[in-house]
């Protein structure tokens, strides 16, 4: 019983991070129709930059801020210098280009920040908090809290602000949105900045629990993608549900069956989603009115 509760808690914290990664996938999918395969690398980059800055004796808060800003800059530059030059930025062209950007981002981190795993301290230390009989790592609260805040803020942004509404309009009908005076490229740049910022934040909050290194991004990206698919690609609440579901399943499978199964869960979840319900839990069927 206690073991299951512990597993659920660890599932909740890794699931929250998957949810943030999935959120990044969804934001970019909504605005461009593309799958951003660099999302995982941005998460890793966030963790690496924060860890390196912290190792250089920067205050923790400043290191995290610097990591988020650096990754947002990398994403905006990728958009500005590479994606904008694609003559016809179809979803497929952008997706392929993001794979290239992912590979370059990974190599860039390896060359600049090195191959060694890097670490950050827990934001409130690492003395476990005792709750009933459970020993909870204090970072768990930070992870879950920050994830909830980011989810609420993103929801508010898309539903309640002029700019968020403009971005949804571009996602739905780019031509009509352009004729409503919205610059489609601006919406695209904004979605890249948003996805990168959220990804980098996810990287900094998980690093105290898992460490990070230049080759962590691919797996994180894959799990975030599975979470996004599971919850429904393009759906913001779907990212939260998919992420937490995947994290929980993974923790339970790892703890109750065998730790060898842990990483297989995301693959199985992705395959089952594609076979049984390609639109995901919250995704609506792709019904096109003709």
């Amino acid at each position, binding site marked *: 019983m206690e073991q299951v509760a512990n597993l659920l808690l660890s599932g909740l914290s890794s699931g929250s991070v998957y949810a943030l990664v999935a959120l990044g996938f969804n934001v970019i999918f909504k605005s461009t129709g593309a799958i951003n395969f660099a999302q995982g690398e941005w998460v890793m980059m966030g963790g690496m930059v924060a860890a390196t800055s912290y190792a250089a004796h920067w205050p923790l808060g400043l290191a995290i801020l610097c990591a988020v800003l650096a990754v947002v800059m990398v994403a905006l530059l990728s958009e500005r210098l590479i994606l904008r030059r694609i003559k016809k930025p179809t979803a497929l062209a952008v997706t392929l280009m993001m794979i290239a950007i992912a590979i370059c981002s990974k190599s860039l981190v390896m060359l600049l920040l090195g191959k060694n795993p890097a670490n950050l301290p827990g934001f409130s230390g690492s003395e476990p908090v005792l709750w009933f009989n459970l020993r909870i790592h204090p970072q768990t609260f930070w992870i879950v809290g920050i994830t909830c805040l980011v989810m609420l803020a993103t929801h508010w942004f898309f539903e309640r602000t*002029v700019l968020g509404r403009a971005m*949804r309009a571009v996602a*739905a009908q780019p031509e009509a*949105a352009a*004729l409503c005076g919205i610059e489609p490229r601006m919406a695209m740049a904004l979605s890249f900045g948003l996805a990168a910022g959220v990804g980098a934040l996810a990287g900094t909050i998980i690093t105290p629990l898992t460490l990070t290194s230049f080759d962590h991004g691919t797996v994180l990206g894959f799990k975030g993608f599975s979470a996004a698919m599971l919850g429904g690609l393009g759906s913001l609440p779907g990212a939260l549900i998919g992420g937490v579901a995947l994290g929980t399943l993974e923790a339970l499978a790892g703890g109750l069956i065998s730790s060898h199964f842990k990483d297989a869960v995301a693959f199985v979840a992705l395959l089952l989603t594609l076979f049984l319900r390609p639109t995901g839990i919250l995704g609506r069927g792709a019904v096109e009115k003709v």
Partner: protein
Amino acid sequence: MASLELAGVTVTFGGLRAVDALSFSVTSGSIKGIIGPNGAGKTTLFNAISGITAPESGRVLLGGRDVTALRPFQRAALGLSRTFQNLQIFGDMSVLENVMVGAHPRLHSGWLAGLTGRTRDEDQRAEEVAFQKLSMLGLETRAADLAGSLGFADAKLLEIARALASEPQLLLLDEPIAGVPPADQARIADIIREVNGAGVTIVLVEHNMRVVMNLCADILVMNYGARLAEGEPAVVARDPDVIAAYLGPEARHA
């Protein structure tokens, strides 16, 4: 003064000249009708005017200003707005939100304010404008509904409301009446007349001849991307070339 002027505009797709060296102008404050058989290039013409399709040659002028090199969102800022024949509504947004997006060119906040949400006043104004346009088109009771749930006729009205929300000087209407039940056709015609009465120049593509003849003082007939005839409705309707294009060459002698 001409609100819209085209000089030798040519749009080609592969070897097909969808619009072929077309020149015409639209007097400020008037309603210009554009008719022609299916495939005559009417929608392509609208795409060239609104900047969605780049012409191969020729110039597009809005209010005397050459906008040929400007992108759609820049032309929108200059007072151009349009509807689409194959509806392009924002399906997963509410009806009211659709029209609020239409009010976008009237908002003046920078992107930083938009990002941080410090645009509440403008948002409220956009909402007021949007609601007023919805009332004008009789859609105010559906304001909170999802736009994707509207029927075809209401969706067409929604497109007009969204186009009006930007308070355009020039409005391009692509078949606003096609597919609308007869009961609502007269209402849309009245709305077009009302909008025009408020000073908006209108270019109207429509197949319903009775409506076009009633609304427009000036009609351009297109065939194979080029001008077949142009002038007053009564003159155009008697033109033998126009009759031939619509009914086949043998009708010329009937």
